[in-house]
């Protein structure tokens, strides 16, 4: 039997103790992986808002609490095209379908470049709370919508919509099906997917149609602004705000994504603090397990020394056993985390948040497990290697 096989075999001499040590570490690993997958998924989603075609700047009414809550005169959409550096503009009206028969404008939460979502009273599988945006179909690229399966609605259509992938999945709707919004039936002409979990949970229709349905003629909630390639986002934003003081405010897609990532970074830090605590607790378990193991094998270690084993071989064996335990815990914790996150996200958020499977998350977990194995096994291994052979052999 090889030395490696011995190291793999020894941790399970006491199966219960080995299993408990593994569970302790696995919990910490599970936390690291699960939170990494969720925050990674959220980050990937916010990154996708910075798509090539999407608007860099969003303009809204000064003082409005969110991009859906203010009202801007529709004429500003055309006027802003005269601002230096502006390539293209589009007006968006946002509303929330709170029930199959009712609607409200401006109840959306603070947002992203194109839409907001709330799961409303009916949950992810009902139309209640569905985010509806009115926009010129020719300008959808400014909302990050590049490819649509099916076809777009026409600018003047009163009964056509395109829906996001998440809506399609949750409501089990395909091209050609109908949805009831604001008490009216609309035919789904296309399905889009942007990668942004909020946008993909919404519905788009003709701006004019939504204005009529919500009695907001000549009004938009926000104006999406695409700048020229050589223009500077900050300068253009300043120009707009200077041109319309106390009327219009701007926010950039980058700033929004940055704020979200900053919030996610805070969550990351909290995640690490929780994970560190779990790892410390699990690590103490490893130290305890290995100390007990060395204690019980005192005489055996004396025999190994008597037959000529070097100190470093004994140290390597104990350290190796510790790492074996923690690496197995990493595998167990990772599997539980992956299954748990996938199941929980699909049940809780209706698949609007896609977990991240970035290799870095799993690599991090295994590195942490390895390091805990080394740290947890170091003292017991050192103790074992330094045992006096005669005293160890006399031990009962």
């Amino acid at each position: 039997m090889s030395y490696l096989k011995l190291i793999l075999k020894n941790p399970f001499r006491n199966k219960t103790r080995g299993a408990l040590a593994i569970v302790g570490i696995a919990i910490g690993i599970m936390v690291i992986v699960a939170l990494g997958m969720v925050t990674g998924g959220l980050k990937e989603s916010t990154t996708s808002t910075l798509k090539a075609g999407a608007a860099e700047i969003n303009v809204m009414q000064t003082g409005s609490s969110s991009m859906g809550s203010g009202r801007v005169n529709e004429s500003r959409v055309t006027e802003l095209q005269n601002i230096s550096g502006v390539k293209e503009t589009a007006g968006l009206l946002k509303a929330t379908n709170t029930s199959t028969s009712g609607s409200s404008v401006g109840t959306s939460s603070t947002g992203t470049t194109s839409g907001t979502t709330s799961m409303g009273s009916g949950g992810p599988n009902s139309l209640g709370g569905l985010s509806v945006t009115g926009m010129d179909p020719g300008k959808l690229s400014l909302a990050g919508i590049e490819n649509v399966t099916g076809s777009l609605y026409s600018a003047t259509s009163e009964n056509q919509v395109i829906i996001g992938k998440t809506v399609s999945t949750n409501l089990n709707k395909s091209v050609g099906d109908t949805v009831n919004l604001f008490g009216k039936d609309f035919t789904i002409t296309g399905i889009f997917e942007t990668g942004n979990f909020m946008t993909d949970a919404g519905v788009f229709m003709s701006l004019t149609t939504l204005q009529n349905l919500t009695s907001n003629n000549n009004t938009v909630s926000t104006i999406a602004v695409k700048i020229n390639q050589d223009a500077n986002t900050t300068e253009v934003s300043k120009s707009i705000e200077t041109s319309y003081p106390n009327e219009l405010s701007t926010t950039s897609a980058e700033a929004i994504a940055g704020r979200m990532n900053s919030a996610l970074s805070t969550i990351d830090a909290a995640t690490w603090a929780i994970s560190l605590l779990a790892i410390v607790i699990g690590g103490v378990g490893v130290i305890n397990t290995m100390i007990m193991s060395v204690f019980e094998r005192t005489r055996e270690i004396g025999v190994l020394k008597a037959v000529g084993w070097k100190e470093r071989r004994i140290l390597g064996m104990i350290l190796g056993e510790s790492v074996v335990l923690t690496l197995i815990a990493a595998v167990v914790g990772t599997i539980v985390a992956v299954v748990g996150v996938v199941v929980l996200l699909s049940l809780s958020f209706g698949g609007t948040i896609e977990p991240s499977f970035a290799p870095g998350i799993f690599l991090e977990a295994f590195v942490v497990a390895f390091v805990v194995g080394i740290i947890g096994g170091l003292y017991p291994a050192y103790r074992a290697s330094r045992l006096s052979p005669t005293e160890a052999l006399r031990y009962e």
Partner: protein
Amino acid sequence: MSTGGNIIEIHELKKSYDDGKIKALNGLNLEVKKGEFLSIMGPSGSGKSTLLNMIGALDVADEGTIKVAGIDLMKTKELNEFRSQEIGFVFQMHNLIPNLTVLENVEIPMYETDLSSSQMRERAMELLKAVDLEDKADQIPTKLSGGERQRVAIARALVNRPSIILADEPTGSLDSKTGDVILKLLSDLHEKENVTLVMVTHEPYVGNMAERIVNVLDGKIQNQK
């Protein structure tokens, strides 16, 4: 039987414990010829096990000189290699590792050699055949009788072809019949493998099997026969 010069030379060896309160060895002198079968006898606490530990480099003396297989143990720092290559231990309690098979237990001393896994296995099986336990190679020690476990321990002691076997009361925890089997095995292997055999015992009939008996008392050789 002895075949030549001294393999063990001990001169005025002293060892004490408990801050000098217990004088385990008190100026002991001993020479053992290569290939000899020597019995060390004495009452409990006389220093015979301490003497064995010194010869096997399990402990270090306070004073005196001790040379084993040409190596000055007082002047050599790293003694693992010496123990691995020159010494084979047989303890009173067999000290087999319980979660390893019989074969794996015999292989343990070979880990510090350059042998491959297959070579280790081959050598271990060779020794198990010599002690008539090759059919128990895949069993764990708890499934064996006391005598069988001690036979495995003897196989383990011989696996690296040591020049000296040190046996500390090898039949101490066995019944007389099984003890006789073990003693005969040790004696036969001593002849066949041409190793020097130094055995500690307090039983006269066991001691009488040796070519020479030394009696230890109060940490010194009392007499020899």
